[in-house]
Each structure stands twice: as C-alpha cells, then as structure tokens.
C-alpha cells in the first residue's frame, strides 16, 4: 500500500492529475437528484461495454464478405468465451438503446433542455441518431441472410430520397450490388467512423454538463428565466450543492453495476442472436427483420397507407429530427416541472404507447404471409363431400392459406375465414376471389372454374358450429 501511495504521489507530481480530476469529481451538484438522473451514466457504461467487447470481437472477426459468417461461427461455437462476448455485445447494444431512450425521456420531462443547456440537448439528439445507426450497422455485421437482405432493404429505403436516392443507395452498398465492398464499408462505419463521432460527441456532452452543471430537479412555479438563471443556479450550488463524488456518483456506480450484471446474465443465459443461414443473396427463403429496438419502425413501414412510403421514409425521420433539434430553441425558458407541462407529459405517454404498440405488432407481424403453413387437417376441414376436401387442398395450394386463417391454420394478412360461410354468400366469395382486393390478387386469369367451385364450396362450409 505504501508503495502504491509513493507511486501515485510520483505520478501526481508530474501530471497534476489530482488537481485536474479532483475538482471535476468533487464539483458541486444540486442535492436530491435521486435515481432518475442515472440514465446518462448508465448509457455511457453500456457504451463502454460495447467498445470493450467490440474490440475483443474485432480481434477475431474477419470483415471479408466471403468469410465473415465463418469467423462469426468460430467466435460463437469454438472461441473461448466467444459466445459470451457476442452475447454481451448484443445485449449491451439493447441496453444502450433502451437507456438512451430513458435518458432522453427524463431530460425532456424535467425540462433540462432549457437554458443554458440547449446545446447539450442538440448534441444528445445526434448521439441518439448515432446510437441507432450503430445498432443497425452492427446487425448487418452479423452478415447472415438477415444481414445481407437488411442491407438491401436499407439501400431501397435510402433510394427513396428525391434526386440523390440512387446515389445514396449505391454509396451504402459500396457498388451496384450487395457484395464484398458492402461489408468492408459497414465494418469501417461501425468500428471506426461512427464510434469516433460518438467519442467526440460524448466528450462534448460531458464538457457541457461540467460547464453548465447538472440541472436541478424542477419545482413548480420556478420557471427558467435566461436573464437570471445562471446567477440563481450558482447561488443555489453555493448554498445547497453537494460534491458529485461520492454524494451523487454512488447511484451512478450502483446502476452501472446493475447494467453490467444484467447484460452479462442475459449474455450467459439467453446468449447472442442465432446466426441465420449463410449470407447468400440468391437464397429466396429470407425474411429480413431488424433487431428488436427497430421493430417498431418495421411495423410503421408495414402499416403505412399505400403510396405514402416515399414521403414517410424520407420525411418522417427528417421531421422528427428537426422537431427534436428545434425543441430547445423554441421552448428554452419557462416552467420545467412536468406538473406544469401537461403537453410534455401527454406527448411522452402518446409516443411511448405508440412505439410500444408498434413494437408488439412488429414482433407479431400479421402483415407477413405465413409460408410455413401446413394443409388443413381433415379434423378441421370436416369435409361433407369430395368438393369440400378438394377445396381445402386448393385453399392451401393456391396460396390462400398464406394470408388467410381458418381455425388457427394460416396467416393473418387477410381476414380470418374461419366462419366466412356465415358472413358472405357464394356469389360474394366468387367475386372476391376473381377480382381480388387492395391486398389480395385477382385469380380470374389463373383459376380454373372447377377449382373455383371447390374453393367456394369449402369456404361456404366454414360456419359457426360447422
């Protein structure tokens, strides 16, 4: 211990480390910030997990389009603790997205974006965008079937930007097709470029926190007045401030431990996402889906009215980004307490509820046809005659069952037909099959009359109690 003390004193004398770090650690912060102020540091801990496990993974991952998958299989199945590294990296990413969202909600609800911390909010919005980009590019690096096709879907969406779309798409792919150049580029973005931006932005974020101080827990009837706030804040800190270390920092430390513990436990018990089939753009059996934190956006794309995609894919992120960036410029003063800002509270409730519902729908994905459906068993068909049995078979073969559900079998893209015999007449069913609908193809040119009759007979037999 004595040796350590001597070593530290030698180091400190030559670096003035304690003179620099000491004031930072012990700078006064408002009292009673409580547990709700931990999410920023918790996000930073999650980011550190990503950096450290990411470096570890990068020592074994081969970013060659032809070999990335094999190197990942080796990391997952053969490398010592490779399975844990991948799991920590995946759940660390999930934790980071969740915590950055919670941090943002907290700073919004406590009006911490108001004067003089407007710029910190702006930097935070960029960090949110960069975090989501890291999640997306990271998923692609798994470079399995899902990864390859998700890249193509991303390029298609980028292609919707007016004028520049095809150029952006080509830039994303690193060429005209998804191939060798694509993965190398995404590796560089994910490992070097975006993290460099995040490091810079986090540094700026922390400098601004130190510069302006942590916002005090808001009180009703204590609005922010830019003319008087700074003097009032300094005075408050002088009178009531407590040293950040350890009075406030202890909560950050405890939550940091919890974050790491949760990530490690999930990584150990649940494990990393399974690697899908090897990346082959010629394999048709693919169903690209984003990781859970973007499933809500996946649902938005699926539920958009026809013809509105171009506007939503490009316009919605643009409008959302502008609203977030402009928020502190427009609402930089006034009440901070949520009890005096009902619009702020309602908007959070609406956004969280909407995203939550979209998450659940994105997971269920009823709009996706069910290609794995089996032919209806005889116990469900209850065929009163050969026509009905034949109709049930054709219902499966003609792809109807991909989208329509009968007694628990089939997809949910279209209406449930379990009791359609009670609802529609035979003529109505014929018209619908032949003419199709908004989301249903017209079978007029591809359905033989005898097949049509059999399917209609089968569907008319679908009744309650039938």
């Amino acid at each position: 211990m004595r040796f350590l003390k001597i070593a530290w004193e030698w180091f400190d004398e030559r670096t003035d480390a304690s003179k620099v770090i000491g004031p930072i650690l012990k700078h006064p912060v408002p009292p009673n910030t409580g547990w709700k102020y931990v999410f920023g540091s918790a996000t930073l801990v999650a980011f550190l997990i990503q950096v450290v496990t990411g470096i570890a993974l990068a020592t074994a991952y081969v970013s060659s389009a032809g070999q990335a998958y094999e190197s990942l299989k080796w990391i997952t199945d053969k490398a010592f603790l490779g399975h844990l590294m991948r799991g920590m990296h995946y759940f660390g990413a999930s934790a980071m997205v969740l915590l950055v969202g919670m941090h943002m909600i907290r700073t919004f609800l406590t009006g911490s974006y108001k004067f003089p911390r407007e710029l910190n909010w702006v930097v935070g919005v960029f960090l949110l965008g960069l975090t989501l980009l890291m999640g997306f590019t990271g998923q692609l690096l798994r470079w399995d079937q899902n990864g390859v096709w998700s890249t193509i879907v991303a390029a298609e969406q980028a292609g919707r930007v007016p004028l520049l779309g095809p150029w952006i798409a080509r830039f994303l792919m690193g060429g005209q097709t998804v191939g060798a150049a694509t993965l190398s580029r995404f590796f560089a973005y994910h490992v070097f470029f975006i993290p460099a931006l995040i490091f810079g932005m986090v540094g700026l974020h922390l400098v601004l926190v130190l510069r302006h101080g942590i916002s005090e827990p808001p009180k009703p009837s204590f609005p922010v007045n830019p003319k008087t706030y700074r003097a009032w804040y300094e005075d408050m800190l002088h009178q009531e401030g407590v040293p950040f270390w350890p009075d406030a920092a202890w909560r950050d430390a405890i939550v940091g431990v919890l974050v790491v513990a949760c990530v490690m436990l999930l990584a150990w018990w649940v494990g990393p996402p399974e690697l899908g089939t090897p990346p082959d753009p010629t394999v048709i059996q693919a169903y690209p889906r984003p990781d859970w934190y973007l499933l809500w956006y996946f649902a938005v794309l699926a539920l958009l009215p026809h013809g509105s995609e171009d506007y939503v894919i490009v316009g919605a992120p643009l409008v959302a980004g502008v609203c977030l960036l402009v928020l502190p410029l427009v609402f930089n003063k006034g009440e901070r307490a949520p009890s005096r800002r009902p619009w702020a509270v309602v908007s959070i409730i609406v956004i969280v509820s909407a995203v939550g519902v979209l998450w659940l729908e994105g997971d269920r994905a009823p709009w996706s046809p069910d290609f794995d459906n089996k032919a209806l068993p005889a116990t469900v068909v209850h065929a009163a005659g050969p026509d009905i049995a034949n109709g049930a078979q054709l219902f499966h073969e003609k792809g109807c069952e991909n989208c329509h559900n009968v007694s628990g079998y089939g997809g949910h893209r279209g209406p449930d037909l379990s009791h359609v015999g009670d609802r529609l007449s035979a003529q109505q069913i014929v018209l619908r099959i032949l003419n199709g609908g908004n989301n249903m193809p017209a079978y007029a040119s591809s359905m033989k009359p005898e097949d049509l009759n059999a399917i209609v007979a089968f569907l008319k037999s679908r009744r309650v109690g039938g």
Partner: protein
Amino acid sequence: MSEQMTEARRKFLSRLSLGAGGIISALIGLPVLGFLVAPLFERVGREWRGVGAVGDFEKGKTTEVRFEDASPLAWAGVTGKTGAWLRHQPDGQFAAYAINCTHLGCPVRWLPEAELFMCPCHGGVYYSDGTVAAGPPPRPLVRYPVRVRNGLVEILTSPTPIT
C-alpha cells in the same frame, strides 16, 4: 510603430497557420473522400451470364436461377452472386425478373400452384408476368435483359434494382 507591426505580423501568422491547417485538411481529406465515393462513379461493365440450356426450363414454368455478378471482388464469396426468377413463357420467349420486391427489396417467392410471386416482408403479390397483383409494391418486378445464344439462356448482370 513596432507594436503595430507586431500586431500585423501576428495577424499574418495567424492566417498563415489557419491556411496551413486548411491545406493539411484538404491534402488528407480530398483523396480519402475520393476513395470513399469512388463506387458512385465506377463504371462496372455488364456481362451476359449463362443460366442453363433452353431445354432445362419447361414452358410455362418459373424457375429460380443464379449467376455471378459482373466482376465481383475476389473475396466476395457467395455474396458475389445474384438470383433471378426465369420464366419460360408459353410462346417460347424468356423473361427474367429480379427477386427484389419493388416495395423494400425483400426476396419474393414463387408459388407455382398459385402462379404468383409473394413477398414475405409485407405481403406484396405479383402475377406471373411481374405486374403488381396486390399489396404495397409501387411497380412491377424489375426485368433483367435475357437472351438465348446457341441454345443457352443468358441473363445480363445488372445493379440491384433500387425503386
């Protein structure tokens, strides 16, 4: 007098230093930027790739075919290939369709009994001639140029279709 000269000199030296910083940034940044955006301007030649003999494809049927991209990089591995749906039409002509749905690019599947292409992502449906039958796709499946040469069906390599 000497104080004024010192100020003027300082101003000049400041501008000189900032200019030097600008030159350093340009000397490093421009070639790097050029390297990064090069794929946007690269002229990739298109090549005809054989996908099978005419006799391999039954009339009236649609089959999945695979072919190598034009000039894939040596380390592309399996990602250097592209898939397409090839239809041998009843009149003997061939039509090749990109497997990418025109909605958001997911690979469409062919349902032979239904004679329909169906997309797993959002339920887009196309008829056998690639026209939109139902769902969100805004336009028909992209067609690749196809020809028959000496009894061999060939498809012209093409960029990934971006809607």
